[in-house]
C-alpha cells in the first residue's frame, strides 16, 4: 500500500488540475475574436510574391489586400476552412503555407511521426535487450519470472549494503559527507 501512495497523490493532483482547467474552459469558453481568426487564416497562407513569408507576416501590398479579403469573408459568415479553400481554388495548392493533410503531402507528417514512433519502439527493445543481457549475466541465466524478481530484490539489498559502505568510507575521508550520511541514517532509522 505504501508503495502506491505517490501514485495516489499524483492522481489526486491530476484530478484537481483537470477540475480547474475544465472549470475555466466551461465558464469562459475560448472564443476567438475576428482579429485572431484573420490572423489564423492568414498565417496558413503563403504570400504569393514573397520569399518564404506567410500572408500574416508579409508587409507586401498583396498580403495586405489578402488580409482584407479574409476579414470580409469571415465577417460575411464563412468558416476559416471555407476561406482557405477559396484561396486554394484561386491560387492552387502552392498558396498553402504548410502541406495539407491529404494525398501525397500527408507523407510530410507521417514519415517523421512514423520514424519517431519506430525509434521509440526500437529504443525500448534495445534497452530491454541490454538490461536483460546485463541481468542474465548477473543472475547466471535464471529462467522463471519469480527467480528474476528474487534476484532483483537481491540486487537491491546488495546495492543498499554497498551504498552504506561507500558512504561510510566517504564520510571518513571527507568531512563534507558526514552530516549528509548521518542525516540519512537517521532518516532510515526513523
Amino acid at each position: 500500500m505504501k508503495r502506491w501512495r505517490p501514485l495516489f497523490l499524483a492522481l489526486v493532483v491530476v484530478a484537481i488540475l483537470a477540475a480547474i482547467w475544465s472549470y475555466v474552459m466551461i465558464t469562459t469558453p475560448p472564443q476567438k475574436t475576428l482579429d485572431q481568426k484573420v490572423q489564423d487564416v492568414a498565417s496558413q497562407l503563403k504570400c504569393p510574391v514573397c520569399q518564404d513569408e506567410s500572408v500574416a507576416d508579409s508587409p507586401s501590398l498583396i498580403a495586405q489586400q489578402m488580409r482584407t479579403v479574409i476579414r470580409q469573408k469571415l465577417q460575411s459568415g464563412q468558416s476559416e476552412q471555407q476561406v482557405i479553400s477559396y484561396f486554394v481554388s484561386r491560387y492552387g495548392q502552392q498558396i498553402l503555407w504548410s502541406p495539407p493533410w491529404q494525398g501525397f503531402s500527408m507523407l510530410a507528417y507521417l514519415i517523421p511521426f512514423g520514424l519517431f514512433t519506430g525509434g521509440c519502439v526500437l529504443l525500448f527493445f534495445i534497452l530491454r535487450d541490454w538490461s536483460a543481457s546485463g541481468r542474465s549475466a548477473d543472475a547466471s541465466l535464471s529462467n522463471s519470472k519469480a527467480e528474476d524478481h528474487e534476484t532483483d530484490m537481491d540486487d537491491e539489498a546488495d546495492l543498499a549494503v554497498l551504498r552504506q559502505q561507500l558512504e561510510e568510507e566517504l564520510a571518513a575521508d571527507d568531512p563534507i559527507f558526514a552530516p549528509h550520511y548521518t542525516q540519512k541514517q537517521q532518516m532510515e532509522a526513523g
Partner: protein
Amino acid sequence: MHFSDLGVIAIVLALGFAVYTIIVAVLGALRGIPALVASARRGVLVVAALLILASFALVASFLVHDFGVRYVAEQSSLSMPWYYTAAAFYGGQEGSLLYWALMLSVFSSIFVFTSRRAPAVLVPYVLATLMGIEVFFLFMLATVSSPFVRVPNPPADGVGLNPLLMDPGMLVHPPMLLMGYMSFSVPFAIAVAAMLSGRLDNEWLRTIRRWMLASWTIQSTGLLLGAWWAYHVLGWGGYWSWDPVENAALLPWFTATAFLHSSMVQERRGMLKVWNLCLVMATFALSIFGTFEVRSGIISSVHSFAYSDIGGYFFAFLVIVIVFSTVLFVFRLPKLHPEQEFDSVVSREGIFLFNNLLLVGIAFATLWGTIFPLISAALSKQTMSVGAPFYDHVDGPLFALLILAMGVGPLLAWRRTSMHALWRNIGVPAFVAAICAAILPLAGVRDIWANVGFAVCAFTAGAILYEIWRGMRVRHKHGEPYAVAFYQLIQRYRQRYGGYIVHLGLVCLAVGIIGSQFFQTQDNAVLNVGQSMSVLGYQFTYLGNVDAVNPGTETITAQLQVWRDGQLLGYLYPGRTYYQNFDNQPASIIPIPTFGLTDVYIILYNWQGATSATIHIFVNPLTPLVWYGGALMVFGGIVCWWPDRRRKPVTRINQRVGIGQREGDHKRSPVEQEATI
C-alpha cells in the same frame, strides 16, 4: 602589383602547403617518423599564415576601394562606411569561402598548439583530415571561386552590399555562424583519426568532447545572433521563420547537442561508441549540407543573395565525406564493442538515449520539412511549401518532450534508479509544475497548449533549481554562506553545473518562444497626424513623417509617442531607408522598446506625404526571455568548456559499484554521489 595579386599567390602557396602537410602527416604516422609529424605541424601553421595574408589582401583591396577586383566592385561602394566595407569581406560567396578556409586553418593551428593534451597517435591523422578539408576550400578558391579575379575595365564605383546586410548584425552573425559550421570539422577530424588509428579511449573522448563543446557554443551564439538580427531587420515581428537556411544551421546543432549527451554515457559506462561516431560524422555532413543548400539555391530562402553555381562542387564534397567516413566506419566496426552492459531502462543512460532519440528526431523532422518541397516536386509534380505551421506542429511536441526529459534526467541515477528514489526526487519539481498548471488558467492563460508548455518548463526549471539548491545546502551546512556555496559548486563541478545553466537557459528560451508563439498580438492602421491606435493596453500617437536625404540613401521616419495608463513612455521612430543601387529593397528601421518582459515592435509599412502613415504594431510578450535565455545558454556552454587546471579523472561506475576505485569519486558533489549509487 595589386593586393589581389598577393592574395592569389598566398592561396596557391597555401594549397601547396596543405597538400604537403597531408602527405607528410600520413607518411609520418604510417612509418612512425616523428620528424615528419613535426614538419606536418609546421605545415599547418604555414597554411594559416598564408591564409591570414590572403585575407589581409582581400580586406586591403576593399579598404582601398580597388574596384578592379570584381568581388570588391560587387560587394562594396564608395558611400559605405569603412566597417561595412571591411565586413563585405564575407558578404558574398567567394569571400565567405575564404573566411571559412581562414577559420579552418586558424582552428587547425589552435589544435596544433593544444595537441600536447591530445593522444599523440591521433595528431597526424587529425592534421591530415583537417588539411584534406582545407584542400577542398583552397581548390575552390584557387579555381572556380576566387575572390581576387580582376576585370579589364574597373567601374568608377561598386554596387554595394545588399541593404539587408547593412546592419550591425552583419558584423557579428555571419562570421560567428560560419565559424560554427567550420568548427564542426575539428571533432570530425578527431573522429576520423580515431577510426584510422584504432584508438578510441577515454582520452580521445575528452579531447573530442572539448572541441565539440567549443563548436556547440560558437554555433549557439551564431544561431542566436541570426535570430536577433532577423528580429531587428526583417520586420515581421518574429525571430525564427523556419527558413530552409536557418534550418540548415540548426541541424548540426541538434546532432552536436545529441553527441554532447550521449558521449557522457560513453565516458561513464563505455557504451554507445558506434552511435557517438555516427553523430560526429552526421554533424559534419550536415554542416556541409547546409553550405551546399545555401550556395546551390535548390530551395528558395530569404538568404537568396548567397546563390551561386558552385553547389555542384559542394555536393561532390558532401558525397566524398559521406562515402569516406562510412567506409572507414564499416571497416572499424568490429573493433567497437561496448565495454559494459545496460542495467535498467529507468536510469540516466536510459533518459540520455531518449534525449538522443528526440534530438535526432527533431533534426530529422526539420531536415525532412526542408527537403520535402523537392521530394514533392520530383515524385508528385506538386509545388509545395513547407512553412512555420508544419514545424510548429511536428517539432513543437518533440521540443516539449525534450524539455521534460531535461528535467527528469538529473533526477535519475546512472545504472538504475529505484522507484522510491525517483518519487522522492520528482516530488518538488512536480509540485512546482502542478502549482503553475493550476494558477495560470485562473490568471487568464486560456490556451491549453501554452499551459502545457508552461507547466513543462516549470517542472524542468524546478528540477534543476532544486538540484542546485540541494548541492548548495550541503555545502552551506559546512559553514559556507549560500553565495560562496553556489560559486564553489559551479567552480568545482563545472561540467555538471555548466550543463544545468545551459538547461536553465533553454527553459527560459522556451518560455520566451511560448510567449511569442501564443500571445503575440498585432494590429495595423492608417494614421493621420494626431490620431492614435492601441494594442494590448499600449497606446500610440502619430505625430508625422520626416524625410532625410543623404548621399546614396533616403530615409523616411515616422514619429510616434507610446503611452500606457496615461503615462508617456517615450518616443519611437520607425522608418525605411532606400538605397540608390537597391531601389526595390528598402531596409526597415524597427524600434523595439522593451517594457518589462514585453517587446513592442513597430514597423512603418507605408506613408503618404508628411502627415499620414500606415503603422504596423506587434506586441510580443515574453520575447526578451528568448535573448536572456540564449545568453544564459552560451554562458553555460563557456562554463562547461572553461579549462580546468586540476585534471581529475572521471571514475567509471563499474558493474558492481566500484568501492575500490573511488579516488576521483569523493571530489564529486554529495548530491551526485547520492544519485550515483
